């Protein structure tokens, strides 16, 4: 199978976010960057499919050169190849630009792909947009928020999470899948993998060499401001014998919060 996985470089989820003085983004200095958490499930799923069915896994990131680090990590996990679409634009919280870059790349360089794998949502933009947009731009089916995937020949069955249930979805290849936690347990890099990854070349393609039409690239959102959320005023803390604590909780819910 010809498998493509898309990974984004994002701030470590542990990190404390600071807003840049211009209110247009975050201060990146001092932050640790990682592969967006859901994307690791996508990488793992692609590796398992290749192990079961043969083929090749290529990992792609759209972003700055610093993202080579996460691509190298994917190679160390076992991906065959990696590729960076170099885009120096700051985080724009827009899905369409990245989706157009991915769709152009796939059309130009990977016309015979079988499956495109994504995370269900990237940390930061928290958009959950790019996978469905890519599917639309390529005119192929999509299944998002997938927790179980079965591929047989040219057909797939995916279970996707909805409110309180799973949808069983059938589709044919090529297709777009986005991964939800629960799909698998991502593996760690091995020492051998890390050594092998060091030797691999990662091609870099500037975003403006992909022939993307201008109307995709022009910004479609204007950031008015990025700010910290209002801090909640500190609540009350009580330490009472269990019966009294229980009474106090119920009294609070009734009289103060007016919930019951």
């Amino acid at each position, binding site marked *: 199978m010809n498998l493509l996985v898309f990974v984004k470089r994002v701030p470590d*989820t*542990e990190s404390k*976010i600071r807003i840049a003085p211009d209110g247009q983004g975050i201060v990146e200095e001092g932050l640790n960057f990682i592969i967006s*958490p*859901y994307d690791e499930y996508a990488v793992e799923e692609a590796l398992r499919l290749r192990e079961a069915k043969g083929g090749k896994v290529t990992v792609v990131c759209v972003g700055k050169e610093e993202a080579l680090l996460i691509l190298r990590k994917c190679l160390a996990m076992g991906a065959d190849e990696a590729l960076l679409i170099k885009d120096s634009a700051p985080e724009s*919280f*827009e*899905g*369409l630009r990245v989706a157009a870059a991915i769709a152009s790349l796939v059309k130009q360089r990977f016309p015979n792909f079988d499956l495109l794998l994504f995370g269900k949502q990237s940390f930061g*933009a*928290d*958009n*959950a*947009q790019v*996978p*469905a*947009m890519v599917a*639309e731009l390529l*005119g192929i*089916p999509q*299944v*998002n928020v997938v927790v179980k995937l079965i591929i047989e020949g040219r057909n797939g069955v995916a279970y996707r*999470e*909805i*409110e*309180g*249930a*799973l*949808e*069983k*979805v*059938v*589709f*044919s290849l090529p297709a777009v899948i986005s991964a939800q*936690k*629960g799909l698998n347990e991502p593996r760690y890099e091995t020492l051998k993998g890390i050594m092998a990854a060091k030797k691999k070349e990662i091609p870099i393609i500037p975003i403006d060499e992909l022939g993307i039409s201008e109307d995709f690239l022009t910004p479609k*959102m*204007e*950031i*008015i401001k*990025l700010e*910290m*959320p209002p801090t*909640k005023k*500190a*609540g*009350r*803390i009580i*330490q*009472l014998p*269990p019966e009294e*604590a*229980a*009474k*106090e*909780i*119920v009294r609070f819910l009734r009289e103060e*919060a007016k*919930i*019951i």
Partner: protein
Amino acid sequence: MWLVFIEKREGKIKKSSLETLAETSRRAEELDLEVAAVVVGSSFENLTPLWVQGAKKTYWLKGEDLEVYSPEIYAQVLYELIQQIKPEAVFFAGTALGRDLAPRLAAKLRVALVSDCTRIIISNGSLLFVRPVYAGKALLTLKLKTKPFLATLRPNVFPLKEIKDENIAPGEIIEKTIGLNYNGPVAKVVEIVREEGAELDVTEAEVIISGGRGMKAAENFNLLRELSTLIPRSAIGASRAAVDSGWIGHQHQVGQTGKTVCPNLYLAFGISGSIQHLAGMSGSKVIVAVNKDPEAPIFKVADLGVVGDLFQIIPPLKEELRKALAE
């Protein structure tokens, strides 16, 4: 005109869609604009809630193959409707379906989409969207430069209008039979697989009773389930530590790699309040936490923090709740 996509589940209109309609019609009024709803498929039992929540008319897209959701086909029929009626904005509830469909439509229209909006502001006649980013660690206010504006609205954030059905004049229903001229490949839903017990999903619950590593074992989640049976529209949540220990399914996980929730009440038992957990629940309207460690970070966001052993507090709490709810 603004258009609101209305989602149904088993023939019934989803509450999150009604919230979306209610909020957008409140905002549209400020601009002297009308809000219309769009429903897709043949089986809608009762459209009254749409008039109640502010729709003046409803476009009803009928046609073969429209009964079961498919992102490819739904995006196509909405696209065709939008070409015909040219709305200024199109809104969706930020549900599993809304967040699957809206980006596909945005790409078809070549426009930007605001995901998971939690506030709509009208400022000098223009529309501003506010949404959490970085898992709620920051708030983004933005303006769109492409039209129609597209946005998904986070469930459980916006209040419904409380108007009695009798006081509402029904709006206009405009039926449209859309011939399916989409012949691309589609992903087809063939079955809905319910979880055991078919509990309410955390994203839809008004009250979430959540357990963490402090619950100690899978069977102890029954304590939370017992509380849940007392409280209407409540669901069970969990921290990642509890999920990773195999005590409860990951669909219950709240947080960064779990679900983002904003119930009226979040009750946390034995959850420390890691930054990733807070990312998913700090938007809850009221937070009550029980933890034996007085230094637990969850107390920083709790409206009421109870220092104590959850195993000692839950039994009397159950009794007190039973009494209070019986009254």
